[in-house]
């Protein structure tokens, strides 16, 4: 794990929920009132709680829910998150990770000019800013619009404008382009590079404007004859445009031409009047599939039952490919490659004149040289709202305005679950334990030496919380580390006003007592280490296990019986980062919350003063450090 020691992760419970999402959605659609029949977490937790408090965890592990969380298992990679990345759903009363939420886009905006792009414009603009924001095609830094008339001294702020890069000093003069106005540079550039031929331009405009009108007459050819007629006149139509001297179209224009051509081909080759292939849904509509299926079944039935005695089947018309340049055909020029090679070898091009792969990735596919690169409009960014996948409750909703960084709704998990922090307890000189190892370096913990770790839980709720911690006595995996929570049950104060602490400080003997205990420096079983207004610190005693390194060398020598591939894989997988000491800790918290509407779902023991007891339980993983390979 990439975080420095010590770290804490919290496991999102979604990994344990065996119900995949669509299934859950379906079920909830069928019976929205009934909760899914997964085991209700509260009951399991209370069972578990009892067992844990009785310290008989190993005996009662029948259900899946009761298994100890293993931070090393491959599955847990997908459920462990740093606490600050988690969200909390107030409807489900569950921790939500990034896999149990759905995202929806609130707004698109340009990160450079911070203007919001309406969602209807996003596609037509190609996800890029439609204003003046451009990135340098050479070095990707933002380009500035600047005048070049001041340089020649003709007048203030008049005349041609260029885009210039402040970093690599690229300007549009490098590609011989200047702009007449300082505004709407994107449309100016588009006009310059728009290589749609005038005829094709008209046609495409017509197609886009009167889309249905253009297609319906074509798609309503009822018979083959009409179709053949249509095809007969097709070359005549194409012939006048087919002048060999026509300059090649640009990429965009060619794409548009090809698109038009194939659309026309589809409508021409569909021979039945009630054919829906060429309707506005196209091939991807469900009607198209229906028609295809019926076509296959009917033809097989016809040929199977009636042989050839039926009326002669007409040959289905065949779609042809583009033949002329106006249809989008692009024939490679004769000496194209030779020209390119000659240009490569010319001294003024050289290596530096070639566009790099990164530069070409966002340019037109024909761009090979630095001189072919065009300035790139800035890519848009999005603001996204997040919803709980199971109850569709909104968890995060940012302000839609790009200028604002505020959130309307933001239910982060840390306002509901205590923030765990970890630090080693420095051994005091008057320590009663002589075998206490110096815990200065968490990256090399000596094995078999007990160390003490302080785990602080900080409450951010406005209600006091009762916490029960439970750990397996021995960590799972091959490195058996003994872990003991010295005071597994404790309470954390409410996140009340800061002044409360100051006012209580004079008359609170408890805190001063615990402070003195902290000064004494002897961790005692059953006592919390320290306590503040909304936080509590407890001590974990950890005895790191020995690595199987030296002993496993011998162990590796004899696994002749271990021929199973999975075992070998498991061994290999466990070898990596095996020395990392991670302690799974089960946290169960309950608190008395104000009763809300969904009282019957959550509340169990109703308190007299309109309070309900809420519960939440989850696994967390404490990354303590690395164990030394040897003593």
């Amino acid at each position, binding site marked *: 794990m990439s975080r420095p020691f010590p770290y804490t992760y919290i496991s999102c419970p979604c990994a344990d929920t065996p119900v995949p999402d669509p299934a859950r959605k379906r079920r909830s659609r069928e019976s929205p009132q009934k909760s899914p029949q997964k085991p209700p977490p509260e009951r399991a937790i209370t069972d578990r709680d009892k067992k844990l408090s009785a310290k008989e965890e190993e005996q009662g592990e029948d259900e899946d829910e009761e298994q100890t969380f293993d931070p090393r298992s491959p599955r847990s990679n997908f459920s462990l998150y740093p606490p600050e990345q988690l969200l909390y759903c107030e409807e489900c009363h569950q921790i939500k990770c990034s896999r149990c939420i759905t995202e929806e886009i609130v707004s698109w905006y340009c990160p450079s000019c911070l203007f919001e792009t309406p969602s209807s414009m996003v596609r037509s603009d190609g996800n890029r800013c439609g204003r003046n924001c451009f990135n340098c095609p*050479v*070095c990707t830094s933002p380009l500035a619009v600047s005048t*070049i008339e*001041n*340089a*020649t001294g003709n007048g203030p702020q008049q005349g*041609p404008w*260029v885009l*210039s890069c402040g*970093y*690599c*000093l*690229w*300007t*549009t*003069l*490098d*590609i*011989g*382009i*200047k702009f007449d106005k300082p505004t709407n540079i994107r449309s100016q550039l588009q006009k*310059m*590079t*728009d*290589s*749609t*031929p*005038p005829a094709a*331009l008209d046609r495409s405009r017509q197609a886009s404007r009167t889309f249905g009108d253009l297609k319906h007459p074509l798609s309503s050819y009822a018979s083959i004859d009409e179709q053949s007629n249509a095809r007969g006149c097709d070359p005549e139509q194409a012939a006048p445009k087919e002048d060999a001297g*026509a*300059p*090649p*179209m*640009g990429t965009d*224009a060619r794409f548009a031409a090809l698109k038009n051509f194939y659309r026309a081909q589809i409508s021409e080759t569909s021979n039945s009047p009630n054919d829906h292939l060429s309707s506005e849904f196209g091939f991807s509509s469900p009607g198209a599939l229906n028609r295809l299926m019926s076509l296959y079944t009917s033809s097989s039935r016809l040929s199977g039952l009636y042989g050839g005695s039926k009326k002669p089947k007409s040959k289905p018309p065949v779609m042809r490919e583009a033949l002329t340049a106006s249809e989008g055909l692009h024939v490679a020029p004769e000496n194209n490659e030779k020209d390119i090679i000659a240009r490569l070898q010319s001294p*003024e091009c050289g290596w*530096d*004149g070639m566009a*790099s792969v990164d530069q070409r990735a966002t340019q*037109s596919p*024909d761009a090979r040289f*630095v*001189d*072919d690169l*065009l300035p790139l409009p800035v890519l848009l960014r999005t603001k996204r709202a997040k919803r709980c996948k199971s109850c569709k409750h909104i968890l995060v909703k940012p302000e839609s305005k790009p200028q604002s960084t505020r959130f309307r709704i933001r239910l982060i998990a840390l306002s509901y679950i205590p923030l765990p922090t970890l630090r080693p307890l420095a051994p005091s000189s008057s320590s009663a334990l002589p075998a206490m190892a110096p815990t200065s370096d968490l990256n090399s913990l000596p094995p078999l030496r007990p160390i003490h770790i302080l785990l602080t839980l900080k409450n951010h709720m406005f209600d006091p919380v009762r916490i029960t911690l439970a750990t397996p006595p021995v960590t799972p995996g091959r490195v058996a580390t003994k872990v003991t929570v010295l005071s597994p049950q404790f309470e954390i104060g409410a996140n009340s006003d800061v002044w409360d602490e100051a006012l209580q400080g004079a008359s609170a003997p408890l805190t001063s007592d615990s402070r003195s205990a902290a000064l004494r420096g002897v961790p005692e079983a059953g006592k919390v280490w320290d306590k503040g207004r909304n936080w509590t610190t407890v001590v974990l005693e950890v005895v790191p296990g020995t690595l199987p390194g030296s002993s496993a060398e011998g162990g590796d020598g004899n696994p002749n019986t271990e021929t199973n591939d999975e075992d070998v894989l498991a061994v290999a997988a466990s070898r990596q980062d095996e020395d990392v000491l991670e302690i799974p800790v089960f946290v169960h918290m309950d608190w008395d919350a104000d009763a809300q509407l969904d009282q019957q779902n959550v509340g169990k023991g109703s308190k007299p003063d309109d309070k309900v007891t809420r519960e939440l339980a989850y696994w967390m993983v404490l990354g303590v450090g690395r164990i030394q390979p040897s003593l």
Partner: protein
Amino acid sequence: MATLKPPTNTHRSSSSSSHSSGPPKAPLKADPTATIADTVVFQGRYLVTIGAGTVIHPRAKFYAYEGPIFVDDGCIICEKAVIGAPPTSSRSRSPSPSRPPSTSPTESGASTPEPRKEISTRISYFVTVGPLTTVEPGAHIHSSATIEALATIRRGADIGAHSKVCSGCEIAAGGSVAEWVVVYGQGPGMRRKRARGVKEMSPAVVAASQVAQAPLPGPAPAGKVIEDARLMVLQKEREVLGRMLVPAVGGRKK
């Protein structure tokens, strides 16, 4: 800004300073119109020449241990730039104290190549050297070049006129950068030729106008105008700086 002062008389003393206990103070021949901050360090045994109108910002360091350093007119040397190499980091080749420094200060344009021992470092006209850059001995930076912050010019490198070494880039020892070239990226970086004359129009635009049978847009001016504008701005910056500083030093309030 307040620490920037025009050169005082002690700065202009062209005789070698007294060999006290500290590091040897390099003899300095600065033009009276140059602006040199108080905290600029001049060390070494060879002459450091500063041209007219040059601005040297505080805590720049000049180590003239291996040869003379020439900074021509109109340059800007920014904070903490290091020109030359301190004797410890030089290749343990301490200059012989018997050898006298080249006390004959030639004109700033002429070069005094002393090929055997002295390695002269030269920064030509209108060069901008950014903060925290390192220009090692023997480097030659031609006129109107720009060295950005944290760049490193190794020994004997040659930076052509109107070139730019972007921040963090490193020009290897003995390497050369041609004229009108930008070195950008990281480390050795990538290179790009700047537009100097009138470039032909982008093929996309040419093709578009051919297809549309529209006349080509008017030819763009030569790329040189951008560089002219940049140099004008630099010139203005130096002038304004000089105007801001001189009254402050003179004690006249406005």
